[in-house]
């Protein structure tokens, strides 16, 4: 999850409840309706305006906006810790720890409650869930039986005309990341059939029957071959003073895309800012402040946490030449923060980021807070 702290674009936040007669029950905000969202899966998470929680449902080919009614305010800068979070969730859900899959984590910026998208089980009877962890480390289920929600279906075929009439389509979009930017939800995903990296734009509040606008995303590699590999994770950011997206790719590079072009173009070409080193893929990117200056922090599958300063990102020149040997890096430099095994990452508060981290020494999976001053 990433709510770009460096790009605080919070349009439409004041819509909820405005101008309502006091005697009537408050209608659901953002054009939502009450009921059961009936998620088929719970994956990528993002916090939106008014504390709305967006949940990517890859199996159901949809994105849900949930009113989780999290109005608490917590301005403390203290850490939160839940040891062996996988075992605790397994106990709560009545399964063995190996049957708990934690897909994403999002910290609510106002309440500091932490939301987790989880599968109970791996098999045909797996149940998707959203859990909430409080500052005191208590875990609870976010009840989804009667909740204000809205849903946006994602176009499920390369074009509507292409839907097969010869049987049920096996096509599916795996949603890799979500972010709310400037009144729109951006959805990165990867199809299990044709190979195209697409970014879908959905205006929020979701309007009925409004299809996502689909962008094809490219970035040039070494000034020669362009690629449209899947975006693993992305962050709304300011690049050279302009709103932009920073995107981390499974095939390693970090690229920047000007946000202004999102709305005017169907094909978007970005600039490769850095090669982060081979044998690795970025899992999460967040923006944060240290000593009053903007930085980004990247969690990785096979490398340490990486910290980059905005000043260096702004000075970056496009990477146009290949690195000379395996695992070498190029482009924007980074501080290799001595933290490994970070699988989920988000901002928690002024002083801390929150992570889910596999500890190498004993193999345990823990929710921890890491001080930003050390990042």
């Amino acid at each position: 999850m990433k709510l770009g702290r460096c790009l605080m674009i919070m349009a439409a936040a004041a819509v909820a409840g405005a101008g309502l007669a006091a005697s009537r029950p408050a209608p659901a905000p953002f054009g939502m309706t009450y009921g059961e969202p009936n998620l088929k899966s719970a994956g990528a998470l993002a916090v939106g305006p008014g504390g709305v929680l967006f949940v990517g449902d890859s199996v159901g080919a949809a994105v849900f906006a949930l009113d989780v009614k999290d109005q608490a305010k917590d301005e403390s800068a203290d850490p939160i810790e839940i040891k062996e979070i996988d075992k605790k969730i397994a106990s709560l859900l009545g399964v063995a720890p190996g049957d708990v899959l934690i897909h994403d984590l999002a910290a609510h910026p106002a309440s500091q409650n932490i939301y987790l998208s989880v599968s109970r089980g791996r098999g045909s009877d797996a149940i998707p869930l959203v859990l909430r962890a409080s500052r005191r480390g208590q875990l609870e289920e976010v009840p989804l039986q009667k909740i204000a929600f809205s849903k946006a279906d994602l176009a499920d075929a390369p074009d509507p005309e292409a839907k097969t009439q010869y049987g049920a389509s096996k096509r599916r979009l795996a949603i890799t990341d979500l972010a709310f930017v400037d009144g729109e939800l951006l959805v990165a995903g990867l199809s299990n059939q044709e190979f195209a990296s697409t970014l879908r734009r959905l205006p929020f509040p979701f309007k009925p029957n409004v299809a996502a606008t689909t962008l094809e995303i490219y970035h040039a590699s070494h000034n020669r071959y362009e690629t449209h590999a899947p975006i693993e994770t992305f962050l709304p950011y300011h690049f050279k003073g302009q709103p932009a997206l920073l995107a981390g790719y499974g095939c390693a590079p970090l690229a920047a895309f000007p946000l202004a072009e999102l709305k005017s173009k169907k094909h978007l070409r970005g600039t490769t800012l850095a090669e982060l080193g081979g044998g690795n893929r970025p899992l999460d990117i967040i923006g944060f402040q240290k000593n009053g200056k903007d930085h980004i922090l990247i969690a990785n599958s096979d490398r340490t946490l990486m910290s980059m300063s905005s000043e260096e990102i702004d000075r970056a020149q496009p990477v146009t030449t290949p690195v000379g040997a395996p695992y070498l890096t190029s482009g924007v430099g980074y501080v290799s923060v001595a933290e490994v095994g970070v699988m989920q990452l988000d901002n928690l508060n002024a002083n801390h980021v929150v992570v889910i981290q596999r500890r190498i020494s004993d193999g345990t999976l823990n929710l921890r807070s890491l001080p930003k001053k050390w990042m």
Partner: protein
Amino acid sequence: MRRPALLGLGLVVAAGLGLCFHKAQDAAGAAIHFDRDSGAVEVEGLDRAGVAKLARAGLSAADWGALLAVYPGREATPGDHLPPMLGRYGVERGRVRFNPRFPLVAGLDYTARFDAALFKARFGGGGPGAAPAVVATFALPKAVPAAATEVAAVYPSGGELPANQLRVYIHFSAPMSAGEAASRIHLFDAAGREVPRAFLRLDQELWDPGRERFTLLFDPGRIKRGLRANLDEGAPLKEGVSYCLVIDRAWRDGRGEPLGAGFEKRFTVTAADRAAPDHRAWRLEAPPAGSAEPVVLCFPEPLDHALLGELIEVRDGRGGRVSGRAEVSAGETAWRFVPSAAWRSGPYHLRVNPALEDRAGNSLRAVFDVDLRAQEADQQGPGQILIPFEVRSPTE
């Protein structure tokens, strides 16, 4: 293993006895029942006045959990402050009842612990003396699977793959479990050495909606020319070398059972395919009018199995869709379409979506890795491709 301070009677209830209720009882008469049909856990034999007081007490979930806690596993008091299972508590017919929030997992042990001392201290009753905790362990019997799940097919089906092969589809005979693919699929070279990092790892595994088909992607970073991963490690497949794709038998299906057998696909690697498929080289065999014989489209190279099944459709002379059944055959070099009703004389056409790709991800629009020096950026490529054909009566 820690033991509770007051352990009354720990009873492991054997699974599969065919009884609806199982029972563990303390000396004072408090007993835990497990209702196998509903999954509910009940405590009976408690002081009636105490139970009535409990029913009126309006306990929080945490207070209920302190009184009656159910955990997965066999520990009466699990360590590390594990929370008890989610569920709904209440009092029914003089019993304390817990309905778990989620269905119990067959074959997994569960342990229920009732703190009789706490009950006695807060709600009274039960006579003089200490009130030991009542503990019961139970399990739902695991159903015996009817038939093991198998790998039904792997595409491409041929024994030769290009060095820049992009996707492999693995079809299973029944739904599979999620989250294991990365550790269950291996690529070995001719010398039996495993090829490291051959495949793209994704947290969101690429399954079809029924979870019966898995899409395996070779790491695009290693396939695309000029990308760092390609320069560092080279393409995972080398031309002229033979490989074996191995699928572990231990991969669990949707019921948690391993596959009936592992699977191996041996193949030899040919030169990389860097050309977009050219529809002008395709050959169409039109069926005769009045028959329900297939219209057949043949390709000079194998195309992507899944996309072939979805991206070609048949339209009649007025542009209406013709209903029928499509199949991919001849090692993905032929697409056949059998109409639901007999063909009528007249013009038809095939409508091909240009997103159709070959085995290396080259689509009708563009090759997989576009050489910017050779092609204009932002090129749109062709729109829908129409391949006309005429259905004639055999006498014509």
